[in-house]
């Protein structure tokens, strides 16, 4: 597996370098730049963290190279989605928006997003072969494409060297031991647990209600929120209940922090040993000078699936067609895809396009290398408009399970009923 990956990397490096060189040449072509000088597009995204500053820098560079101006609106994700839902039908939406993969189906089914013609993709050099299936398929809903993936926020296992060293879980080489199974993870976590130190946590803040972590465990056990035909909830099935039982045992056995603790703060403060959390955390850990390593997500159930949630470029439906603006938006997507290595290096998110994966600056980074090695295991949410609403219903239920307020099986059966009652 790793050899095959290395082979792909070499090949993609050569093609990637060629594409990047080509794009740079195109961007510097004065005629092309002049033709687009006047275009100004509006762009909404939810990059409110440090990644927003990186995006600003890249957009400045893009404007310098292409003459296309971008007016950005940066809105917290939850508000961004409500705003798109209101403004697009009123004809006040942006020319370009960045959204999470699981938002695509409900926006598509509500007619908020424009369908992207596959020929428009191929004519601009976007090919399925350049993407892993999870990212490429994430833009497709009911056979039609609505989005193009930029990057792949995903889970990874962070190991706190200080905490693990104190528990004697560091090898002779100074590297923390990585659990190979659920049993081993629990046993190691117990070894680290003290009154205010926890062995294992999942989720950035509020681990008890961290649906993305719960989904990850479901997927590892071959379970999911909906059945394969997406008609009913599958959360009352035995594989899902087994995950819920494990969820209850985390806090029940006192190996994981309380439901509303900040795992990130606990990890930084040296009070959390093993931490499954989003890839977006690692640049912050470095800034906080935490002694940590990252490892691929361990296989805790049947398969080593890694939760991922690609950011997707989409075109909200405009009031009237404006070919110049649409072309300018495409130019930006193409440009970002060609410069995505800079995005990865500064914002810490692995690109959806595989072309940048072989960039030597990226492969030299130990954490980015781990994130890329998980590519074959990436999985995304199911393509149903009910996904986000189901997730909102899941949050309080898994918290009740986590703190032992409700028994796992009964809570999951109730959750499945609630999800089945959602409007179709």
């Amino acid at each position: 597996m790793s050899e095959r990956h290395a082979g792909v990397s070499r090949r993609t490096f050569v093609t990637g370098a060629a594409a990047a060189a080509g794009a740079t040449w195109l961007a510097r072509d004065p005629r092309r730049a002049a033709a687009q000088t006047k275009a100004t597009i509006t762009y909404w995204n939810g990059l409110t963290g440090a990644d927003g500053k990186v995006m600003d820098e890249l957009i400045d560079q893009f404007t310098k190279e292409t003459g296309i101006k971008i007016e950005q609106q940066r809105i917290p994700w939850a508000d961004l989605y409500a705003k798109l839902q209101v403004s697009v039908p009123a004809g006040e939406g942006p020319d370009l928006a960045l959204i999470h993969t699981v938002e695509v189906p409900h926006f598509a089914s509500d007619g908020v997003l424009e369908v992207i013609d596959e020929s428009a993709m191929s004519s601009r050099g976007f090919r399925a072969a350049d993407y892993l299936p999870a990212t490429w398929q994430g833009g497709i809903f009911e056979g039609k494409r609505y989005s193009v993936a930029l990057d792949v926020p995903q889970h990874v296992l962070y190991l706190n060297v200080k905490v693990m060293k104190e528990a004697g879980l560091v090898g002779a080489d100074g590297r923390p031991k990585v659990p190979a199974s659920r049993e081993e993870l629990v046993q190691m976590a117990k070894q680290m647990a003290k009154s205010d130190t926890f062995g294992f946590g999942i989720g950035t803040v509020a681990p008890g209600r961290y649906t993305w972590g719960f989904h990850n465990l479901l997927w590892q056990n071959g379970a999911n929120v909906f059945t394969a035909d997406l008609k009913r909830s599958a959360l009352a099935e035995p594989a899902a209940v087994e995950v819920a039982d494990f969820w209850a045992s985390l806090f029940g056995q006192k190996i994981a922090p309380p439901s509303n603790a900040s795992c990130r703060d606990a990890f930084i403060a040296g009070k959390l040993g093993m931490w499954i959390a989003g890839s977006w955390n690692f640049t912050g850990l470095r800034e906080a000078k935490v002694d940590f390593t990252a490892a691929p997500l361990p296989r805790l159930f049947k398969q080593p699936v890694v939760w991922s949630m690609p950011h997707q470029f989409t075109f909200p439906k405009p009031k009237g067609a404006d070919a110049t603006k649409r072309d300018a938006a495409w130019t930006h997507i193409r440009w970002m895809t060609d410069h995505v290595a800079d995005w990865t290096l500064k914002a810490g998110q692995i690109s959806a396009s595989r072309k940048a994966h072989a960039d030597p600056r990226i492969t030299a980074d130990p954490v980015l290398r781990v994130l890329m090695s998980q590519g074959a295991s990436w999985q995304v949410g199911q393509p149903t408009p009910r996904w986000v609403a189901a997730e909102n219903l899941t949050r309080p239920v898994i918290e009740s399970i986590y703190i032992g307020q409700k028994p796992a099986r009964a809570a999951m059966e109730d959750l499945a009923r609630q999800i089945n009652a959602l409007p179709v």
Partner: protein
Amino acid sequence: MARRRGLTAYGFLAPGLLLFAAFRVYPLLDGLRLSFTNARLGRPAQAFVGLANYERLLEDTRFHVSLWNTLFYTVASTLPILAIPLLLAVALNRGSMRTVLRGAFFFPFTLSVVTVGLTWLWLLDPVVGPFNYYFGWLVGPGRSWLSEPGTAMWVIIATTVWWVAGYYLVIYLAGLQDIPRDLYESAALDGAGAIRSFWAITLPLLRPVLLFVFVTHIIGSFQIFGQVFILTQGGPGDSTRTVVQHLYETAFQNFFAFGAASAMAWVLFAIILAFSLLQFRLLRGHTEL
């Protein structure tokens, strides 16, 4: 002549009335209309569904839980909200440090609910928060205050008292200033101590102010949202979920179901209206002292 004067008055009132009609009355009535439809934000087509949204509320167990939690919060928070600022007001009515202390107690109210929520969230963090650190030092092992069903709502109440006490303190102080000083002097001559004066003079004469605080607090309590949303998001489980949070999530997170959310809003409106009428009826005779 009188008729003309009336018209002139309405002429002056017209701009205000127009704005009131456009931004208050129309949304209110349109909300009522929406509550009888299956309206969803962003979907132009909507159909009349009769009382279906209201009927669904009868079966919506999470709505029932939210309603119960809201009632619990309202009842449990009333006494501390009435009493603590009153005690502070009496203590700060005189004394050398009163200006500084009044400022200090009023300060939290100048903060937005998000700032208050985030500050307390950090203070009460079960692993790295300073509250548990000192609690463990002085009392015993700390707890996860916001993620235990038995304590979460009480923490929200305590946070709210901390936040709004300064506001009610100022209102009480204004009321205290209105009580004639000679009443206390006469009482002192008759041999009344501080406690006797409080019960016999301060409290009865503050009754209109107490009524104002009581009514505004009850109305505000039924609409509690911000503190809960930041501190617990309704958790653990649904232990602190309130009606407005349920309404917000129905309207802006789960399918943007404006019809169903409007029905909830009208039910909440009816409850608040009923409580307000009840309060006015019960206390009407006592306010005209």
